[in-house]
């Protein structure tokens, strides 16, 4: 009878050999044994199944009845456990594998910080390190991302906000930096002086006493506003403000009448070289001779393996054949080119806020194939600069 009970207790197949089998079995059953599936194989040989706990009684009685008993096999949980213990190494390896996988899956592998300046990023990383959050540490027992977020915001005042997200085995941090305005007041006494000669168009003095008025022509270094609020008194303040003035610029240019242009006609030949260190091995296209006009463009590939640059790379040289053409420009074209280039040059030199109001060609002459151009520009710009006053104590 095979049932659950037998499975947990364990049953075993036993071979009994001897002349007094029946009396032996009778004696066993009298003492409470349960014999099942008995088959006679020979006159003095019987195979039967007994429960594991009956094995003791069998062994006690076998001497008396001169029987030889031997185990042919066992079934049930006790035998499975015994078998497992026999394969202890396999079991240990299995447990070790499970533990290793568990540990590796719960290890923090990387921390990525986005959206912060390098200094602040380093600060965040060192703070994380002090909380015990660094690559290679176990995430078990680590603080929650929300807790880390709060602590970071508390500890680093420069952070406006930081998002901490756990993604598998890595932490992703996204930070927003506080924009700091310099609220510190500059209190050193100062004047506003003119940076260059000009005619005042507009004044806007935030602090200080204006010394000039609109349409005044000021020279370089002239005081526009002073920090001395009341005349003949020792009270000086920091003066601030903007003074827009009309300034003048003279631009002289000489441009050639004839221009030579190099034009690519579209035909290109390429040469390929394999570079190993400093040595270059030609592969293809090395047979082309050096004839005619051409423009060379070379670029080499940048191969890398796992982030390491390898010294082997492919260099490609493209030869574009070119055609030189000379263009004779008219005086009017030259003038246009000169004016526009002078304007853009000036604009680059000036403050971004400055505005070119007017331009005028003062002089235009042609000599020796060149055009000489003198231009006059009228610009509105801020000419006020701060000049500190040294107060003799």
């Amino acid at each position, binding site marked *: 009878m095979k049932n659950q009970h037998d499975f947990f207790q364990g049953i075993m197949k036993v071979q009994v050999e001897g002349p007094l089998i*029946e009396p032996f079995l*009778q004696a066993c059953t*009298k003492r409470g044994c*349960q014999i*099942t599936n*008995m088959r*006679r194989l020979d006159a003095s040989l019987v195979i039967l199944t007994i429960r594991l706990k009956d094995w003791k009684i069998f062994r006690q009685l076998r001497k008396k009845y001169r029987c030889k008993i031997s185990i042919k096999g066992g079934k049930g949980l006790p035998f499975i456990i015994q078998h497992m213990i026999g394969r202890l190494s396999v079991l240990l390896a299995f447990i070790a594998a499970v533990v290793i996988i568990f540990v590796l899956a719960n290890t923090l592998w990387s921390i990525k910080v986005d959206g912060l300046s390098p200094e602040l990023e380093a600060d965040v990383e060192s703070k994380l390190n002090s909380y015990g959050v660094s690559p290679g540490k176990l995430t078990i027992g680590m603080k929650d991302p929300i807790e880390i977020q709060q602590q970071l915001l508390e500890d680093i005042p420069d952070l406006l906000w930081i998002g901490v997200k756990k993604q598998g085995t890595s932490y992703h941090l996204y930070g927003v930096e506080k924009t700091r305005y310099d609220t510190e007041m500059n209190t050193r006494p100062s004047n506003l002086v003119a940076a260059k000669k000009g005619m005042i168009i507009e004044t806007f003095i935030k602090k200080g006493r204006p010394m000039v008025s609109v349409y005044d022509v000021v020279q370089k270094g002239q005081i526009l506003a002073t920090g001395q609020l009341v005349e003949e008194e020792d009270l000086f303040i920091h003066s601030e403000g903007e003074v827009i003035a009309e300034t003048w610029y003279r631009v002289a240019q000489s441009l050639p009448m004839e221009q030579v242009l190099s034009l690519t006609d579209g035909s290109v030949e390429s040469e390929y070289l394999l570079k190993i260190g400093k040595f270059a091995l030609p592969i293809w296209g090395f047979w082309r001779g050096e004839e005619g006009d051409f423009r060379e463009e070379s670029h080499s590939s940048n191969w890398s393996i796992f982030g390491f640059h390898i010294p082997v790379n492919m260099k490609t040289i493209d030869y574009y054949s070119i055609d030189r053409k000379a263009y004779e420009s008219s005086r009017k074209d030259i003038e246009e080119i000169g004016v526009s280039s002078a304007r853009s040059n000036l604009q680059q030199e000036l403050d971004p806020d400055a505005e070119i109001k007017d331009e005028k060609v003062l002089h235009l002459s042609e000599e020796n194939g060149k055009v000489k151009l003198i231009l006059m520009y009228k610009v509105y710009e801020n000419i006020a600069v701060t000049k500190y006053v040294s107060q003799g104590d």
Partner: protein
Amino acid sequence: MSKWQQQLRTWISRYFDLPSDVMLDLPRITTIGSIHVYIENHTGLLHFSDEEVRIQYKKGQVRILGKDLGVKMMLKEELLLEGELKSVEFLPE
């Protein structure tokens, strides 16, 4: 004495309508067709082989003949045989 006791037992079992195997220490043999034999209240297995099984009871022996006989289960006073059953013989002493 023994004969008188036997007669009393038979009388009691008849009078009180008790099962005779309990009262008289006789084996109860149940067969299911000719494939299973269930013997209760026996006192010992005397011999067992493929063709013949002999069982002791209080007042004699039971011989079961058949083919491919095997003991499916054996307890202290119970025996379940299986195989191809041919005959059950009683051999009183």
